[in-house]
């Protein structure tokens, strides 16, 4: 099913990001994946971890090359990899802004002011939910319960959580983010990959 013309996950807006000219994992990424594969009875089970590595390697979202590379490394059909990746909401198929704000509007947060926070953010950033600012700095999304309800309204920005956010203090969140160099999507993926790896350098295995 190696259909080169399949465009179902091609980013709509454009440029293929820089980092992977030949569309391959870096040697470090391959070593990480090799280590992770040893955690499971078969390679296929390393699918989610491999997609996390890919999300980091390809700059925060899964390009066609990323899917092809995961398929190649795990020896699975491309269509299968794409099918799995598209099931999960945390894998991106389009570039996100440098800071990806995910505001929880679920039950508790929704009842303690989350919508006010969303509307204030829309106003301040000049975008609607699901959109990215034209300078590429911020993407604004709505998410389901982040299970941090005691601190509602909660906003997740990758590995950072902001609790007790209100429409009156949300400006501070933006200020803090503007000062941060973190690029939400790749750095979240990187954190997750590190969590999967036991402490110490990944042991690279020769195949």
């Amino acid at each position, binding site marked *: 099913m190696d259909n080169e013309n399949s465009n179902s996950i091609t980013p709509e807006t454009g440029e293929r990001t820089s980092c992977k000219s030949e569309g391959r994992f870096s040697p470090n990424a391959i070593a990480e994946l090799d280590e992770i594969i040893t955690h499971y009875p078969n390679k296929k089970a390393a699918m989610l971890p491999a997609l996390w590595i890919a999300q980091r390697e390809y700059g925060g979202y899964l390009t066609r090359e990323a899917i092809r590379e995961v398929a190649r490394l795990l020896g699975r059909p491309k269509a299968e990899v794409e099918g799995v990746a598209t099931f999960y909401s*945390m894998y991106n198929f389009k570039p996100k802004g440098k800071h990806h704000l995910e505001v929880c509007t679920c039950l508790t947060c929704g009842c303690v002011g989350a919508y006010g926070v969303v509307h204030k953010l829309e106003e301040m950033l000049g975008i609607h939910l699901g959109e990215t600012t034209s300078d590429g700095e911020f993407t604004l999304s709505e998410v389901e319960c982040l299970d941090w309800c005691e601190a509602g309204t909660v906003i997740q920005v990758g590995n950072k959580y902001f609790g007790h956010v209100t429409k009156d203090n949300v400006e501070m969140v933006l200020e803090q983010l503007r000062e941060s160099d973190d690029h939400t999507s790749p750095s979240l993926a990187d954190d997750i990959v590190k969590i999967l790896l036991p402490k110490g350098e990944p042991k690279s295995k020769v195949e």
Partner: protein
Amino acid sequence: MAELKLLLKYRDVPGIENIDVWESCGGYEGLKKALTMERSAVIDEMKISAVRGRGGAGFPAWIKWSGVLKHTDAPHYLICNGDEGEPGTFKDRELMLKLAHQLVEGMIIAAYATNTDKGYVYIRGEFVEPAKSVRKAIDQAYAKGYLGRGILGREDFNFDLYIHMGAGSYECGEETALMSSLMGERGQPRLKFPHGALPVDAGVWDSPTLINNVETYSCAPHILRNGGAWYASMGTERSKGTKIISVSGHVKKPGNYEIELGTPLMEVLDLAGGVIGGKLKAIIPGGSSVPILPAEKCVGVNMDYESCQAAGTMLGSGGFMVFNEKTDIVILMRRTAEFYAHESCGKCTPCREGTRWMFKILDRIVSGSGQPSDIDLLLNVCDQIDGRSYCPLGDAAAWPIRAGIKNFREEFEYWITHKKSPIGGDCVPPVPYRINPALIPLS
């Protein structure tokens, strides 16, 4: 019966995330004791304790444990369900973030008891900080010889523990969907008993598998250290021990409160400082999937499996959400339906289509286009989903909506007749000013 800290006892001890501090609080003693016992004797302690699964269904833990041990062939697998996604529930997050060693110790005990040498902690992708704590605890446990080969000098006991991170899917908390996800597939459920095998016989990779919730495993060190009979001395006749209740919403002090099972529901509310912003209107006591209780039905209900059921709701995962009189139940139900429509995995028709229809109808009502027949239509959709879906997510989507209508029907009627909220303009959640097309692709 009241607040009773067992699992949360050491939550606020400085440095408790470090193995030395955990050990100085009696940590890993339960494991050491377990290793002096026969495997089946460990399960007997679990049986005497009568601890039930804390992930929602309340199934006796020991039955699953002994189901795995009885298989003498093939590898066994141990899974911890740390996918916590149920709106209103946040106990597993705190247990992993602050007390990861308690969980790791519980899993090692379970591994010994079930003769298992490989385990996975499945953690939802959003939980980066809690997962980092678990990572640290696992690494420290390896360094101390509690994990790995020949644990504590026992040549016949090896156990490797890995972390598997999810990637954003509520359905992956359902145990068979979780196994699909662990095996590298879409997070969709697998055929269940009696049509398919039980996980304890053929779970992940077709091997005997034990899957328990974070809180369930976290009970094991205490049960082993102090004995099953001691654990069973707490709680009610059929609901033993303690339960962590995650209190959120319109209360003064939201947070996790551990109570003895059987504690009056209203006492939990008091623990959390009582209602703020107006009078109490309703409580959802066990996470978004369980039926809502109007204020007048809350009195006299106790927080245990049986009492909650008798009151027409469920203890569930302990996600205790409190709503004051400013809450518009119809909009709350619309948001609940939106959650399930968004999280339905799409495998079976009643849930995939039904959850979307429920959301569409509720959305129509709060957009001012509701029709008098809509209430019965909603109930009809609930009936079409409940009991007809492939996994319990469908049922869990129907129950809250049905209970919302049953207990607050006049608010639905008000919306349909007057095309505005019975609460007024400052209701919560606020009247949606626009449907968000990004969240649910309605094709």
